[in-house]
Every structure is written in structure tokens, then in C-alpha cells.
């Protein structure tokens, strides 16, 4: 290593110090920002980017460049059907969560005092309790001798137990239950940031309560609605536990399929290919949603 003269060494030290001290109290220097972000980047690279890169490599090289795993994904009707089902279920869950979650978020944003606390607790307890427990709860409810069937047979509505579980509707129902907090919370935050004055102004200007909602409150909460939908849809695409427990063999979804290939059949290249396809599709949807979101930037201060 080249030996630096004392003066030059001093200069380096000073420059180094300058890079890490705040020159302005409103902005951190670039070097300091990078230093603060370094731990996050390290974790992301080691725990996320590297495994994904490895996965993609696994799906493409065996050991030479080989697209056979991908060809198999797209040429086998079964796998395409699984993919279509995954998207259908994710979409259904998102729509259902929105329809059921918006009123809850709206009530939470408007409630005051003890009731607001109860509503918030209901949502958060649902969010904090383990997914496994919530999924098993649905089995208890929907199985052949479950509460719902008992009620139906004992009241004589049906003569024998219905097949309520291990089908697509049951999966959608249980997943909606699990993912609804992810829809409610962003919408709640958005509604909370819309001042109540806007609705009053709309009423004052001649709008009925319904029109005031659809013309003013709803459009102003759209950023929250989009955020909730993106989160719900993307989480639903990769959901594993609930479909695995509630779904039957006829309701196989992507995550479960990948799990089977990787752990049961030990076909790693194929599991990697499936994962890569799912990952690409998810990224595609995130970008599309972002695009839609940026169209709604006129809101300002709310979005």
C-alpha cells in the first residue's frame, strides 16, 4: 500500500469525517444515509435476493441451460388450471374482503370512545391470532360433524350433512377471514385522514348522505382501497396454510403445489420454475397496481 504523507492523510480523514457528519440539519449526507440503510440491505441480500437468485438458477440450469421445467409448467393443463384457480381465488378473496372490509373500516374511522376501541380490538385480535388457529377454526365449523352441519340437520333444514369443506368456496371464505385485516387497516388509515368537514361541506351543498359518500368520502379513500387490494391480492396469491388445510385435492393452489413438488416429490428444478413464474406474475401485478395508483395522485395530501 502506498504510504500517504501526513497532510494527505489528514485530508482523507477530514473528507471521511465530512461524509459522515450532518452538514445540514434537514438532510443527512448520502454516505450517512447509506450507512444507516446498510443493515437492512445486508439482510435483504442474504435472506431474500440470494435465495431467489439461487431459485431462478436452479430452475434454469441442470446443469446446462434448460427450459424444460418451464415448458412443463406451461404445457401441462393441470398446472395451468392450478395457476388459473390461484388467481381466481385471490381475486375473489380481494373483492370479498373489500366488500366486507370497507364498512368495518368506515365504522372504525367514525366511531369514538369505547366502541372504537372494541372495533379496533376485533380487527387486531384477528390479525394477531395465528393463521393456523384461524384456519383450524373453520374446519371445526365446517366439517361433516361441525357446528354448521349440526345446526342444519338438527333444525331440519337439510336431512343429511352438507359437504361444506374441502372445496373452493370454503377456501375463499377462510382466506377472506384471514386476510381481511390487511384490507381494513389501509382503508381505515385513509378514511381517518379525510377530514369530516368534507362530508359536511357536501351535505351543506345539497348532497344526500349517500351522494356525499359516493362523491366525496369514497373517492378520497381510494388510495387506501388500492393499497388494501394490492396487499390482499398479493398475499392471497402466495397463501399456503389455509388452502392446504381447508382445500381438498380438487382445490390445489400454487403455493401448495410448490410445497408438494419441493418436499414430497423432491423435484427441485420444477418447484423452482413454478416459484419463479408465481414471483414474476406477482411482480407484474404490483407494477400494474402501482401504475393505477399513480393515476390517482390528484388527491394530494390524502394519497
Amino acid at each position, binding site marked *: 500500500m502506498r504510504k500517504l504523507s501526513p497532510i494527505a492523510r489528514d485530508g482523507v480523514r477530514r473528507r471521511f469525517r465530512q461524509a459522515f457528519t450532518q452538514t445540514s440539519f434537514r438532510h443527512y449526507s448520502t454516505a450517512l444515509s447509506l450507512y444507516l440503510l446498510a443493515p437492512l440491505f445486508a439482510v435483504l441480500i442474504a435472506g431474500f435476493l440470494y435465495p431467489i437468485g439461487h431459485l431462478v438458477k436452479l430452475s434454469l440450469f441442470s446443469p446446462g441451460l434448460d427450459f424444460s421445467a418451464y415448458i412443463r409448467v406451461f404445457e401441462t393443463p393441470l398446472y395451468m388450471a392450478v395457476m388459473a384457480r390461484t388467481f381466481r381465488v385471490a381475486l375473489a378473496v380481494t373483492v370479498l374482503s373489500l366488500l366486507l372490509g370497507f364498512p368495518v373500516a368506515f365504522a372504525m374511522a367514525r366511531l369514538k370512545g369505547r366502541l372504537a376501541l372494541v372495533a379496533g380490538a376485533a380487527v387486531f385480535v384477528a390479525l394477531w391470532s395465528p393463521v393456523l388457529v384461524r384456519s383450524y377454526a373453520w374446519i371445526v365449523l365446517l366439517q361433516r360433524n361441525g357446528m354448521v352441519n349440526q345446526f342444519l340437520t338438527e333444525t331440519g333444514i337439510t336431512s343429511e350433512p352438507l359437504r361444506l369443506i374441502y372445496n373452493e368456496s370454503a377456501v375463499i371464505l377462510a382466506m377472506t377471514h384471514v386476510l381481511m385485516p390487511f384490507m381494513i387497516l389501509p382503508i381505515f388509515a385513509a378514511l381517518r385522514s379525510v*377530514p369530516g368537514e368534507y362530508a359536511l361541506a357536501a351535505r351543506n*351543498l*345539497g348532497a344526500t348522505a349517500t351522494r356525499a359518500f359516493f362523491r366525496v368520502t369514497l373517492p*378520497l379513500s381510494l388510495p387506501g382501497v388500492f393499497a388494501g387490494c394490492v396487499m390482499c391480492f398479493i398475499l392471497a396469491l402466495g397463501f399456503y396454510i389455509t388452502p392446504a388445510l381447508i382445500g381438498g385435492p380438487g382445490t390445489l393452489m400454487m403455493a401448495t403445489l410448490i410445497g408438494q413438488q419441493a418436499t414430497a416429490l423432491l423435484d427441485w428444478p420444477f418447484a423452482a420454475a413454478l416459484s419463479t413464474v408465481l414471483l414474476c406474475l406477482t411482480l407484474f401485478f404490483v407494477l400494474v397496481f402501482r401504475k393505477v395508483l399513480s393515476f390517482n395522485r*390528484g388527491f*394530494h*395530501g*390524502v394519497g
Partner: protein
Amino acid sequence: MIGQVLALQKLRKRYNDAVAVDNVSLEIQAGEFVSILGPSGSGKTTLLAMIAGFERPCEGSISIGARDVTALAPNHRNIGMVFQKYALFPHLTVGQNIAFPLQMRGLKRTLIADRIKRSLELVQLGEYERRYPHELSGGQQQRVAVARATVFEPPVLLMDEPLGALDKKLRETMQLEISRLQKRLGATVVYVTHDQDEALTMSDRVAVMSKGNLVQIGEPVELYQRPQSAFVADFIGKMNFIDVEYLADRHDACTVRLNETVTLSVPRLGANERARVTKGDLVRLAVRPERLSIVETEATDTIQGIVESSVFVGSFQLVLVRINARGNPVMQVQVPISSSTPFVRVGENVGVAAKKDAFHVFAPAATQP
């Protein structure tokens, strides 16, 4: 636009135990500009919310023209309102904001476009129709809010501290502009403010509220010169208060004692207050700074004191004199700059005097209305 009479009768609003508005009756003539003036928490915003229909009064009634609107939903009242923070819809352009009340009334598209244009010209924002509210300055947003509240020609226009968010200079310009617009439109205006200058300069009449009650209503001059209570005297304009001893009441004046040597002859108390005080009671003597002058110490009937400080304010000199009376209060005296009276020095002994009719006397209980 033709204004209509707005009549409030014995309005009362209670929230659990707290009374926000207590027994307020007020009749505002068609085309009249009335300010509701009061400190925060005096119930003026609640009163406005009841007129607009956002709050239902517990007792009493509200009518516009011949129509009783007490139980009517806000969207059926046809009242214009300018909100404190304007409440312009952020997702709609200026034009769409102004179109909103017209769309709600089912007007034809071509008619709406025409009305928007006229309304924007009236507030001098002709070319801003396609902008979003956040792209406008505070003053411009304020004008859009006024345009939106008046475009459907409501007979009554409510304004809830509409100039509170603007700086002093802009506020003065907007005061004139709102007055001009109101004269032109002829609407009945109820203007809520805590800024007394605003209320005095813009209004035909001012209603002063305190703790949910309407304590005095009158023309600005009347309120300023003949306050009926110590609260109004203190709230409107600057006022010096001195606690004095009540001595005697004659048919045209009463005498009060400041200290051992000085007694003053001042206007009588109000009739019902007169019954409450007897010789030797403490009463409050009030006098405005601009009615006082600095005189020679030896002159009779003057209040003696020592100059504590003297501040140059621009149009006048403000002299603070600690006077020789109960509690040794400091009195503010406004001395015109151009006057021939010699410049006073700090520490100097001076006399403070005013004409007899410059004084007001209030019984102490009246300070808590």
C-alpha cells in the same frame, strides 16, 4: 340573489352536562351582515352548526324566511357555507368544486358551465377553473370557497372564521372583498369570528357571545361606545379597568372614590345594576386608552400616577401609567404624536384625565355573565 330573514328562537344545545348554546334568540334581517363574535368556547361555532343543520338544537327553532328549518336535513336548507379551512374537495378541480352544488340541484350541463364562469369572474379567478385546490394560494382557495358557497344563490350565507388562516395583510384585503361581494349579492350573512376588528369593520350588527349566551347585540359603534357589561367592554377594543369604591348616585351621575384624595363623577350604572350596589361597594371603572390624556399632576379630578414606560406605536404614543388606586393598576394612555403635549419621561409623576362621559361603570357581578 335575494337574502331572507333568518330567525333564531330560544336555541339551546346541550352536550351531556355542558351547555354549549343557552337560550339564544336573534333575528337577522334580509341582506344584513351580522357577525357572531366571541372567544373560543363561547358557543359561536355550535350556533353556526345548528343553523347549517349539522347539529340539532335541544330546544328552540330556526327559520329562514317563512320556512321553519329546525328539523330539516342540511342538504335541504339551501344555505351557503364557507368553512374555516375552506373544505374544498381535494380530488376535484376548482370548476368541479363550484359545479358540485349545481349538480346536486340537477341543473343542466350548459347552464352549470355558464354559472361557474360567472361565479369565478365574480371572485376574480377566471382562469383557474382547471386547477386543483392544492395548486392555489390560501387567498385564492378562500375565494373559491366563497364562489362555491354562493354559486347556487342561497338566501343565507354562513362563514366560519373564513379569514383565520390568512396573514394580516391578505385578511384586510379579503375583508373588503367579502363586504363588496355581499353588497352585490344581497345575501343575509352570518359571520363567525373571534377577531373583533374583523367584526367591527365588516358588519351591520355584531352579536357578542360568552359561555353560550348572547351578551349584547348592536351596531359596531354602539357596542364600542356603550358596552353593557364588563365582558363586552373588555372584549371589544382596549379597555382600562380600575376597581373603585362606590359613593353615591345622583340623577345624572354617580361618584366613585379612587383613593383618599381623588373622587370622580362618572355616568350612572345601568338600572338593574344600580339596585345591586350600595355605598362602599367595589365597582369597576372602565375607560378606553384613546379617551385618556396626560395632564398636569396638580389639576383637580385627575388620577395620579407614575409613568412606567412609553412606547412609540406609529400613529400614537402608548404611555403606561401605574396609578394611585386600589391594587395600583397600570393604565394605558394613547397620546397622539402630533399633539403639543410634552414628551413624557419614564418615572415622571403625571396626571391622567378623561371627560366624564368617557367612563363606564360596571357592578362587579356583571363581569361573570
